[in-house]
């Protein structure tokens, strides 16, 4: 039986939660919201494979668990490989009459560290082999679990405990890895960027990811008050703001080639200035010092350029 996705508020309230309250994620962390939104999209029996990270350690402290789905964690860099084993085993056991469920969705979840960096090889392998898995990255912009170290997902200008803002350094100086597009370049059937503020967009896309045959990838933007030094009550607003300034635009890529800008990003008349985003978080505070004015300007130009390129790919002039 295929259950419908819960898109309307009254349906969302009725859909069983997949993550209980009482988990030990930080106040204001967007990751549990992201997981719950994922739950709104589910269509039936599901198995979750997760990498080591905040969400993993804070939701499964033995002898407790917050998960209401069958869930497995093995290590930091291998959720894509674990999920590959799960889906293939389920499929072959069904053929052999040892698995009663007609269909099981397999979802792998990783943070930006486990996805952009240490787990990237396993993800690329999973994509190339074409397993029917949805991989979701909840991207909070750094190795927050180990104490806010830089990752391939960290923005330029962001201060972390391994990309300090100092007298001669403006925080991280390198670009963020364009992960969604790298994944899409594998000719992955479906790739989408989402954020928890635009929840209908999120649920709709996650459902598409589940329904597509073969691998799909969801890149979810996940504000982290502890690491970002932002207010705990502002996480949803920051998720929206990241979209508005062009740091996490919302779009879909079909089969690696066909780009489609999603409603919230498409409706933007123009990008809001990055300053509006940076000033909400302690991790960007140093950028407002006069010595980084030029650096800041170069980052704004970079985002403007990226935005124009993306619009072009999406067929928006």
């Amino acid at each position: 039986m295929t259950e419908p996705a819960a898109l309307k508020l009254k349906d969302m309230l009725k859909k069983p939660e997949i993550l209980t309250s009482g988990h030990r994620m930080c106040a204001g962390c967007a990751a549990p919201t992201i997981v719950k939104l994922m739950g709104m999209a589910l269509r039936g029996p599901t198995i979750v494979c997760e990498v080591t990270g905040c969400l993993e350690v804070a939701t499964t402290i033995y002898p407790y668990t917050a998960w209401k789905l069958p869930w497995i964690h093995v290590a930091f860099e291998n959720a894509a490989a674990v999920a590959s084993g799960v889906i293939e085993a389920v499929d072959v056991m069904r053929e052999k009459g040892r698995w009663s469920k007609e269909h099981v969705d397999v979802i792998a979840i990783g943070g930006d560290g486990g996805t952009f960096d240490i787990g990237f090889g396993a993800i690329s392998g999973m994509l190339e082999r074409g397993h029917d898995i949805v991989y979701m990255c909840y991207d909070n912009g750094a190795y927050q679990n180990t104490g806010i170290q830089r990752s391939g997902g960290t923005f330029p200008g962001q201060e972390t405990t391994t990309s300090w803002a100092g007298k001669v350094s403006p925080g991280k100086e390198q670009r963020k890895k364009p992960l969604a597009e790298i994944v899409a370049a594998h000719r992955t059937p479906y790739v989408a960027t989402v954020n928890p503020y635009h929840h209908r967009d999120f649920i709709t896309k996650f459902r598409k990811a589940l329904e597509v045959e073969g691998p799909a990838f969801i890149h979810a933007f996940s504000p982290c008050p502890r690491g970002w030094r932002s207010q705990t009550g502002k996480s949803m607003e920051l998720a929206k703001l990241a979209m508005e300034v062009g740091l996490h635009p919302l779009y879909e890529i079909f089969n690696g080639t066909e780009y489609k800008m999603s409603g919230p990003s498409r409706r933007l008349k123009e990008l809001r200035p990055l300053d509006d985003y940076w000033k909400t978080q302690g991790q960007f505070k140093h950028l407002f010092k006069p010595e980084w004015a030029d650096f800041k300007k170069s980052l704004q130009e970079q985002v403007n350029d990226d935005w124009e390129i993306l619009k072009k790919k999406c067929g928006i002039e």
Partner: protein
Amino acid sequence: MTAVKRIPKDQIAIEGLTGDAAIAHALKQCDLDVLAAYPITPQTIIVEDYQKFAANGEVHCRVIPVESEHSAMSACIGASAVGARVATASASAGLALMWEILYCAASMRMPIIFTVANRALSGPINIHNDWSDTYGARDSGFIQIYTQSCQEAYDTTIMAFKIAEDHKVLLPIMVCIDGFILSHNVERVEMLPTKAVENFLGVREPFIKLDPDNPITMGPLALTDYYFEFKEQQERAMEAVPEVFAQVETDFEKMTGRRYGMFEEYRTDDAEIIIFTHSTPGGTAKATVDVLREKGEKVGVLRLRMFRPFPTKEIVEVVKNAKAVIVFEKCRSFGAPSNPLALELRTALYDLEKRPMVVDFVIGLGGRDCPPTTIVEGYEKTKEYLKKGKAPLYETMGVRK
């Protein structure tokens, strides 16, 4: 379980097979659900042959051609977690890349069968045999069984599933063959009819599994309050191995007439000096002992098969009355007082009031040949040490100094 019966001779297929091919044939008959592996010499033929069986529709199994050994063991865990029968194969650097996940497989109690063609570790890079790879993983929580012949590799691979999947055990197993020396050497192998192997093994019945109807959390975080208890349970599972192993061997013997034990004793009854080694040097040692016996020397061989769990008490019983035990091992534990196999033996013997002298020779690193003369040289040296009443803690043999 159906009663095990002796398989009539006319149903046995006899073929000349390499160690790798013997293992591939065993895996073919074990009705795997998933095999996930990455190629590495000298294990590659296992996976190549198995892939060929899959390509010809001779097995009903999903082969996952993963992008690394790290992912191979990870995919095996995922598949095992939903209740599948699972195997992989590797060696050397590949095994080293799995390292982290070996511990996960064992502590998550996944009965994965991991066939290993033992090969030296880099550097310098070297494709030939020694035991540094699996010895290094001796504390990973895997059961380790070392085999001497292609027949034994075939038989042990089949038995391994039944041992690993037993609910008293639920631990992964490394089935080891010497790289090239056995992996690429053709020997006569008697193969069982597939139906007999299937009856012998049955279908895996998982103790727990990832199941949407009964959701559980596998691989949680356990800190100071519970981690230690997980480790305690792992040790209990190890302690249960000898009994299950013996039962499985008894059933296998009924079917084939063959049994191997946790170790093989060869002419040890009245032996004053016992050679202690495993894998292919075990064969060399037995042939050498035959010659030495003809010259009137009281010497025998204890060929170890099961290194983990180490059959401490049983080994002590065999060697306690000997004057000396000569260890031949293909691994150096840098900076250690001696080397892995001798360390185990010395620990086992320490509490005896009267202990045999233990002499430890490191041989054959990086595949250097270990002919019978190596065994004889070690034997002669040991006799000298016995006269002097003193031996070095270890020495290397067959290396330019």
